[in-house]
């Protein structure tokens, strides 16, 4: 005699039978029938055909029957909107019922009927219920506003329900307040811009009062809402913290975590010298630890959050290492998280304990966990220098177990240890080499190859070892192939005599037989490096490597600060800001920690920097990401170029150029190709780089008044850069540069015909430009340019053309015409071509000229990183520095070097 009888269907005309029962006169029978209908509905059967019959049962005094019918209505109103209107009347009536339970139930159910037509009828009853004398009805109505907003947002706004809801925040009943906050928060989520929850000290006070008296769920809503508030000063922050702290002792873990969020956020505003700050830190640890004794699912979420908290404020849990020790029957997802936090908490004080644990874990059954444990040992070695030796010997012990995956993981982490502590533990290489054959995972193979290549000079049979890998070169994964290529090149540079053949072999394998562009490109780079300048190659390939950073996979500080504001939410579980995964980016507002605004003026400015952000980071330390490939590229090509960004290059040319010209020349001259100058320095980069160089050298030249004039004839000439790629100009490729030869400026052009037809009738024209540069003679191409032919032309220029200021100043727009079409391109010319050689000027004369320049023409800006020698600014007198050329009268003043 249980409810299961409702599920038994023996007869075929089930719906028909139910219909008859629903229309029965007997109340009991009716109720039984409705129960059967509900039961069918819950198991997914379609009983929507019974809609009118069920709705007929709605007008009843029997509360249970009413509820059942409501349940049915909520489920099927959507599919039967016309029928659902029949129910409206009853709802309206029920909203006036003397029993508040009925009123609340009616307003609750109404909101669940997701039919547009009905919603209009619901506004009046809802308005009444929002002002009901019974708080139970009011709190139900508050939620109903959120429901209605979900169905028809416009309607809710038009009817002014949002304001009513805001008023409910000041309700006398804490439960009503909590629900109003919850409803507003949900509505606000779909309206990120609207300031629904504009919190002020008064409303905060109301919320804090309600916080103590409402249900656990209400407390979560209120706490989450509080976390969005930014207190105006540290006193307010402290007083809020004081009132939130008791929530840390709540039995509901969600309340605890939400309270932790509020405290973590507002703590940011408190001064660290404050006694209260220390007290608060102490209070935060026990509840976090307690979360770990809860059910595994709760533990998991807690651990993900603790991971963030530990990164932000490691001092909170630094003494609690032991609670993160793994129990063998923890679910795997808990184990992995605990391990992660253990490493974060590892320090010199507890490293012995941690290592003993990790070693224990490395003998467990679960493969994933064992791997991570082995990796953790390596991370400890890198993090805590004093333990490195211990870690290495532990890893060696593990390698001795010969368990395949343990050995492979160990080798991967030993590679990292080598990178952190070079020339310290190389004695273990022999042991590693013994296990060479058992490695079958790409990462481990790549790591081993790296080790062999890096320490080739200490491994007698390094060439044999690498050669053995080379046999199956094409079956290896890219990671291994790239590594093998680099390792053999290193080996060659270290032992050139006996490995020439090997390096040839690998280069040809990489460049000729591979489809992988990365591999091919790296092959070419090495090939050209080696054939151009072996000494330079050595400097590049065997350059001193930057050390890897201590703390691995730390979350970037700004992201971490944002995530701290999202403690306890999904974002904190994924360690991603909500914008990264919340559907459609709807309602995403970036949150940030409040700045510390002390009410009592504190002068210690360095202290105000966000705490926890690693400030003393060494610039040459790169973090180890899992991405071996990226790392090694960085490594082998030396530290990243710290020159000026390339953004100054001409807008039109930049990107296209790199692809067009760069690739062309890369692909064009195949194997024997010793990369031309434009290979080493990509064309787009050449322009600004030259500019920089010119500034430097040109400047010192100009100011170097003691040295003779006229020596500038051999002034700097930038290598030719591709100005107009062939693909943009129907086969005509133009590269060129500017020169200044004894007082005359010229533009050296190289025209290449890459099309299949002959080109004739060349002509050139410049657009107006800043210094009036113009061709002094027509473009002379004597013979027609046949396919694949190149001519070099020097076009003399003068500066008598019309002037128009360009952006940037040295921008030159050029049109070139031939028999096919007219092509346009723009380029930047180095300024030094404009400087006259006889720039020597009498001191008086200089000052006079200087004064002649109207003040409005004077602009000041700073040139950074400009290598000026001490002499540089001398003649400039109190105006620091100046330089006037033949263009000075054009009143464009460009150099103003600071002392």
């Amino acid at each position, binding site marked *: 005699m249980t409810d299961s009888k409702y599920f038994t269907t023996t007869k075929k005309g089930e719906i028909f039978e139910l219909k008859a029962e629903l229309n029965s006169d007997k109340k009991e029978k009716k109720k039984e029938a409705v129960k059967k209908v509900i039961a069918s509905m819950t198991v997914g059967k379609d009983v929507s055909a019974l809609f009118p019959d069920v709705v007929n049962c709605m007008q009843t005094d029997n509360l249970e029957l009413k509820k059942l019918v409501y349940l049915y209505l909520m489920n099927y109103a959507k599919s039967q909107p016309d029928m659902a209107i029949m129910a409206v009347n009853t709802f309206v009536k029920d909203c006036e019922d003397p029993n508040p339970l009925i009123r609340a139930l009616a307003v609750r159910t109404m909101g669940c009927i997701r039919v547009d037509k009905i919603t209009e009828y619901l506004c009046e009853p809802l308005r009444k219920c929002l002002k009901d004398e019974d708080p139970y009805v009011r709190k139900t109505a508050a939620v109903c506003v959120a429901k209605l907003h979900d169905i028809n947002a416009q309607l809710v706004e038009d009817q002014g329900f949002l304001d009513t809801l805001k008023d409910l925040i000041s309700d006398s009943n804490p439960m009503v307040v909590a629900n109003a906050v919850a409803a507003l928060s949900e509505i606000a989520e779909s309206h990120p811009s609207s300031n629904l929850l504009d919190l002020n000290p008064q409303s905060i006070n109301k919320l804090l009062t309600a916080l103590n008296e409402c249900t656990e769920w209400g407390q979560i809503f209120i706490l989450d809402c509080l976390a969005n508030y930014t207190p105006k000063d540290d006193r307010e922050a402290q007083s809020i913290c004081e009132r939130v702290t008791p929530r840390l002792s709540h039995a509901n873990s969600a309340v605890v975590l939400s309270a932790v969020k509020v405290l973590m956020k507002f703590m940011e505003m408190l001064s660290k010298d404050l006694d209260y700050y220390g007290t608060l830190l102490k209070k935060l640890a026990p509840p976090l630890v307690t979360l770990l004794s809860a059910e595994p*699912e709760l533990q998991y979420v807690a651990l993900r959050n603790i991971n963030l908290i530990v990164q932000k404020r490691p001092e909170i849990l630094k003494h609690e290492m032991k609670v993160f020790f793994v129990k063998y029957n923890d679910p795997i997802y808990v184990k992995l998280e605990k391990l992660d936090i253990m490493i974060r908490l590892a320090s010199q004080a507890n490293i012995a304990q941690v290592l003993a*644990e990790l070693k224990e874990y490395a003998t467990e059954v679960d493969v994933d966990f064992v791997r991570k444990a082995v990796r953790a040992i390596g991370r400890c070695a890198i993090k805590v220098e004093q333990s490195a030796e211990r870690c290495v010997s532990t890893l060696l012990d593990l390698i001795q177990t010969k368990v395949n995956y343990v050995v492979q993981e160990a080798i991967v982490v030993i590679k990292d240890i080598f990178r952190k502590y070079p020339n310290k533990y190389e004695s273990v290489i022999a042991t590693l080499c013994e296990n060479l054959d058992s490695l079958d995972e790409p990462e481990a193979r790549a790591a081993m190859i790296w080790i062999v290549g890096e320490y080739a000079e200490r491994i007698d049979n390094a060439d044999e070892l690498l050669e053995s890998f080379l046999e199956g070169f094409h079956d290896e994964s890219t990671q291994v192939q790239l590594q093998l290529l680099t390792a053999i090149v290193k080996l060659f540079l270290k032992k050139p005599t006996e490995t020439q053949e090997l390096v040839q072999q690998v280069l040809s394998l990489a460049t000729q037989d591979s489809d992988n562009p990365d591999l091919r490109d790296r092959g070419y780079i090495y090939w050209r490096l080696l054939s151009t300048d072996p000494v330079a190659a050595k400097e590049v390939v065997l350059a001193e490597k930057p050390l890897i950073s201590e703390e691995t996979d730390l979350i970037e500080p700004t992201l971490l600060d944002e995530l701290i504001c999202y403690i306890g939410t999904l974002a904190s579980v994924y360690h991603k800001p909500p914008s990264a995964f919340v559907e459609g980016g709807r309602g995403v507002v970036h949150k940030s920690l409040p700045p510390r605004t002390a009410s009592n003026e504190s002068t210690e400015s360095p202290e105000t920097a966000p705490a926890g952000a690693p400030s003393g980071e060494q610039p040459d330390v790169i973090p180890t990401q899992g991405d071996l490939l990226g790392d090694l590229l960085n490594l082998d090509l030396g530290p990243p170029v710290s020159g000026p960004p390339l953004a100054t290059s001409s807008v039109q040319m930049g990107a296209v150029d790199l692809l067009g010209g760069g690739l062309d020349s890369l692909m064009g001259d195949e194997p024997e190709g010793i990369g031309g100058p434009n290979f080493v320095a990509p064309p787009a980069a050449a322009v600004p780089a030259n500019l920089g160089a010119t500034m430097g050298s040109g400047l010192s030249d100009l100011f170097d008044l003691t040295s003779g004039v006229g020596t500038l004839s051999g002034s700097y000439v930038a290598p030719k850069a591709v100005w107009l790629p062939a693909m943009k100009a129907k086969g005509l490729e133009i590269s060129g540069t500017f020169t200044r030869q004894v007082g005359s400026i010229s533009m050296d052009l190289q025209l290449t015909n890459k099309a299949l037809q002959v080109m004739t009738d060349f002509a050139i024209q410049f657009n107006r430009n800043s210094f009036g540069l113009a061709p002094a003679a027509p473009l002379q191409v004597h013979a027609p340019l046949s396919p694949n032919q190149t001519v070099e032309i020097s076009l003399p220029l003068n500066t008598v053309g019309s002037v128009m200021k360009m952006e940037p100043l040295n921008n030159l727009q050029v049109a070139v015409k031939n028999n096919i079409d007219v092509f346009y391109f723009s380029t930047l010319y180095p300024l030094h071509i404009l400087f006259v050689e006889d720039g020597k000027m009498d001191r008086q004369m200089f000052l006079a000229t200087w004064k002649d320049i109207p003040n409005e023409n004077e602009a000041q800006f700073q040139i950074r990183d400009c290598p000026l020698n001490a002499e540089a600014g001398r003649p400039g007198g109190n105006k620091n520095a100046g330089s006037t050329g033949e263009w000075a009268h054009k009143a464009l003043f460009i150099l103003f070097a600071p002392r």
Partner: protein
Amino acid sequence: MIHSLFLINSSGDIFLEKHWKSVVSRSVCDYFFEAQERATEAENVPPVIPTPHHYLLSVYRHKIFFVAVIQTEVPPLFVIEFLHRVVDTFQDYFGVCSEPVIKDNVVVVYEVLEEMLDNGFPLATESNILKELIKPPTILRTVVNRSTNVGDQLPTGQLSVVPWRRTGVKYTNNEAYFDVIEEIDAIIDKSGSTITAEIQGVIDACVKLTGMPDLTLSFMNPRLLDDVSFHPCVRFKRWESERILSFIPPDGNFRLLSYHVSAQNLVAIPVYVKHNISFRDSSSLGRFEITVGPKQTMGKTIEGVIVTSQMPKGVLNMSLTPSQGTHTFDPVTKMLSWDVGKINPQKLPSLKGTMSLQAGASKPDENPTINLHFKIQQLAISGLKVNRLDMYGEKYKPFKGIKYMTKAGKFQVRT
């Protein structure tokens, strides 16, 4: 907030679904099944699973997955806590929480779920209130199957300042019982020294008192309790200032307090395990011997001792003789279980014998971990003691009782 709830049994059937907002198709559970397949064991299914449009948060209890579907950013702990509350409520209503029982009481289940959430917002999760709204099935009512199980009164407690207690409670025998139960979680290493040990304690109460009693409970040594979580009824202010628990209790069973005594305070370990488990390389036999004995028990008897251990895969069978109790070894799951019973300090229980290993295989890499269960009556191992219980606000004299017990939680001995 919470969109929908699916209940899924261990064979992967969705046997109940409940939607609080618009209906979410069952097919969303396919993502869950995928994750379930990837995780080898049911316990290892990750609690948070992202899908293209929803997030699935699940808990696994009583061999049932409770899968909640959410669509917007919701605190996951909120959802998981709520799911636990659902499980607890079912257990409270039906005695056990299992698939057949839920199916048998499906109407009540639906009504309860409907009351627990409104539009995804928690509505009534206190079992006191729920039971007033929807009466739990009783034998009488199932037999007669007449009377309604829906209350027709507004639950009075819901609006008072003490929402956890209904008004007008009447008992002929007024009694208040408190159970102090402590669980020791510990990891002991090979040599017998403690790696970590902590105590999870709770005070469960069963209070059946007439009217609106106001109780205070004080301890002999309250300083032990520095990490506590209280039932909402406890007045936090008085605890902060006077270290006494002052509260108006809910009616019936409830958890008054849970606390945590951390590893930093020295935790007494009441048992020790001597073990000698050895595999030899080449040989297909291994030796196995364990002895269990009492350590710091404050003179109490250790009872209900059960030793379990997951043996390495290479172990084919075990032939063991216990000095007391019974033991089993499952050659498929490799689980050894020894039900010891009481420990008699004069004659320590031991289990000795041999293990037969796979011939020719090298010795197993991993060492088995020994799991220990035990109970000690009339002892709270942390030393916590209740001083006195006073009642104000009512005139009658209640019957008071307090009981202590210590249990093993996750008590593991590594070998």
